[in-house]
């Protein structure tokens, strides 16, 4: 037993969110063509409860669930924690669970798998039978897969990958989407299947349980089906696909099975992306051909809407990227106080707190994390000392603007891997996924005479303990509320 509540599917999670006031049930019919996307977008921008759509135009029997994990509160609920847990508390629990032994999934019989309640094969497996939303006006197509993951398997070592690779509906049987060459699936498909001219079986899992979604976002080296078990504290139940040997979560709402086609590309995009812009060009991208669709009774689509902060992609990717960096730096014995990637940075900026134990420690930190497989996804590292609360944006901005020397405190890294989604990159750099990185060193040099080191002037740094306690004890008596 895990010892904390776990939601085996989105139906249970929806009830959990409702219990904590994190859900709005929309009974009025909404249109899949932009209206649903606009609602989810506004929910993300205003940090409102998840919308649960009961009626979708043209698609009787289908429901939809938007912005499932776009706040830390919903993440805490998904993890079975107190909804009011702080970000450091959620981070510590995540690290504790994901540092344990991997927990392998268990395979269940198809009869016990709700995702097999309806099976569409051959011509019946038609993507337009699913209520794929037109998420943003101007997108290149309907993005059926925005909060989902794609299951694939290495043909040589059998390793499983669950990753979030967006998929645009092209026609009844075809989806298209970017698979970047440095991604796990990109290495597998372009490194192994394409050279052998072999189609790669895939299964897109739409609207899985919340922790499988968290795992699919995480850049961990542990296979995501096992990583999900670690987050759950028990194995996830999976079931074999109809048309291939891949296994998918048995309690997911919708599964799309088929092949990723080698040596064929079709134009995909534009799309409103996680950076908050429509940046990457409409270009020939990876093609998925569909063989089967399976789904539950009254299936519930999951809809994420990428744009300006904060959506679940930004929040979870920032959260898990930062914590994988924390594990990396701790494994190297660096005396860090923590790592926090700001979701508002669209997972581009990470703050690392460290005891400045020796000269060059900030550069060492940046070299380590920029040298890791995590690095294509971000490009700004701020290193602050242990006097700065990494979770407090005001403190971080204060440290950045006062302790980072505009010349000697900034270190640039050129010719680094990037992504075509970086809004600041030139069209040529986007085409070649070329990036650049920067370190902002906000630690005072250790070779300064002690008497020359500036003293931080704050309530908790320049008053004796007894004065602080006296003031805090009398605070309300002075007439202040908090």
């Amino acid at each position: 037993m895990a010892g904390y509540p776990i939601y085996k599917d989105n139906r249970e999670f929806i009830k959990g969110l409702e219990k904590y006031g994190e859900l709005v049930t929309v009974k009025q019919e909404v249109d899949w063509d932009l209206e649903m996307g606009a609602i989810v977008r506004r929910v993300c921008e205003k940090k409102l409860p998840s919308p649960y759509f009961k009626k979708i135009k043209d698609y009787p029997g289908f429901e939809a669930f938007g912005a499932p994990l776009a706040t830390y509160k919903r993440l805490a609920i998904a993890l079975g924690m107190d909804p009011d847990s702080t970000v450091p508390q959620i981070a510590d629990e995540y690290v504790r669970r994901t540092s344990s032994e991997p927990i392998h999934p268990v395979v269940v019989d198809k009869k016990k798998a709700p995702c097999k309640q309806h099976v569409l094969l051959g011509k019946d497996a038609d993507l337009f039978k699913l209520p794929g939303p037109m998420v943003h006006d101007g997108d290149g197509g309907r993005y059926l897969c925005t909060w989902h993951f794609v299951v694939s398997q290495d043909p040589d070592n059998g390793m499983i990958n669950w990753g979030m690779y967006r998929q645009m509906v092209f026609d009844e049987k075809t989806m298209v989407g970017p698979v970047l060459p440095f991604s796990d699936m990109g290495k597998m498909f372009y490194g192994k299947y394409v050279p052998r001219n072999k189609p790669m079986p895939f299964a897109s899992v739409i609207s899985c349980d919340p922790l499988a979604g968290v795992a699919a976002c995480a850049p961990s080296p542990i296979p995501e089906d096992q990583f999900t078990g670690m987050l759950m504290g028990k194995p996830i139940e999976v079931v074999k696909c109809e048309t291939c040997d891949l296994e998918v979560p048995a309690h997911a709402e919708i599964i799309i099975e088929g092949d990723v086609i080698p040596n064929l590309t079709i134009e995909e995009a534009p799309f409103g992306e996680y950076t908050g812009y429509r940046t990457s060009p409409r270009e020939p991208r990876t093609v998925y051909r569909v063989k089967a669709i399976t789904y539950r009774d009254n299936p519930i689509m999951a809809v994420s809407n990428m744009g300006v902060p904060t959506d679940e992609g930004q929040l979870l990717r920032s959260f898990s990227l930062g914590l994988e960096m924390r594990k990396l730096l701790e494994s190297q014995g660096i005396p860090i106080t923590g790592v926090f990637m700001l979701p508002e940075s669209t997972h581009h900026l990470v703050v690392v707190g460290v005891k400045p134990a020796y000269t060059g420690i900030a550069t060492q930190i940046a070299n380590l994390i920029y040298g890791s497989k995590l690095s294509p996804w971000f490009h700004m590292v701020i290193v602050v000392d242990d006097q700065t609360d990494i979770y407090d944006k005001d403190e971080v901005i204060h440290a950045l603007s006062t302790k980072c020397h505009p010349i000697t405190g900034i270190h640039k890294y050129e010719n680094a891997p990037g992504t075509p989604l970086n809004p600041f990159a030139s069209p040529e750099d986007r085409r070649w996924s070329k990036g650049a990185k920067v370190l902002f060193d906000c630690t005072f040099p250790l070779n300064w005479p002690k008497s020359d080191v500036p003293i931080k002037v704050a309530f908790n740094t320049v008053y004796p303990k007894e004065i602080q306690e006296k003031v805090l004890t009398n605070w309300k008596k002075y007439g202040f509320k908090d």
Partner: protein
Amino acid sequence: MAKKEYDTFVLTDPALVPQDKEMEMILRDLTPSDRRYKYRSFFASAMVSRNEKKYPDKLWIRLGRGQLQEKPWSVKILKEANKFQ
């Protein structure tokens, strides 16, 4: 019968798109008889004109980042091409 409407993404300067010449392009159906199929894409051999009235169907133009151009063109679809057979 009402004109059908399509759109297409033009990745270069729209002024460079050849007029009145058969070419292969990707079109999206904006007015299908079954609304569930709206935005279905397909490869087609077609001729286009900046003159909205020249060909039977209306063609909306979008640029590479989805920017919709103000005035529609017209299009004549000669045949739909299936890339997967």
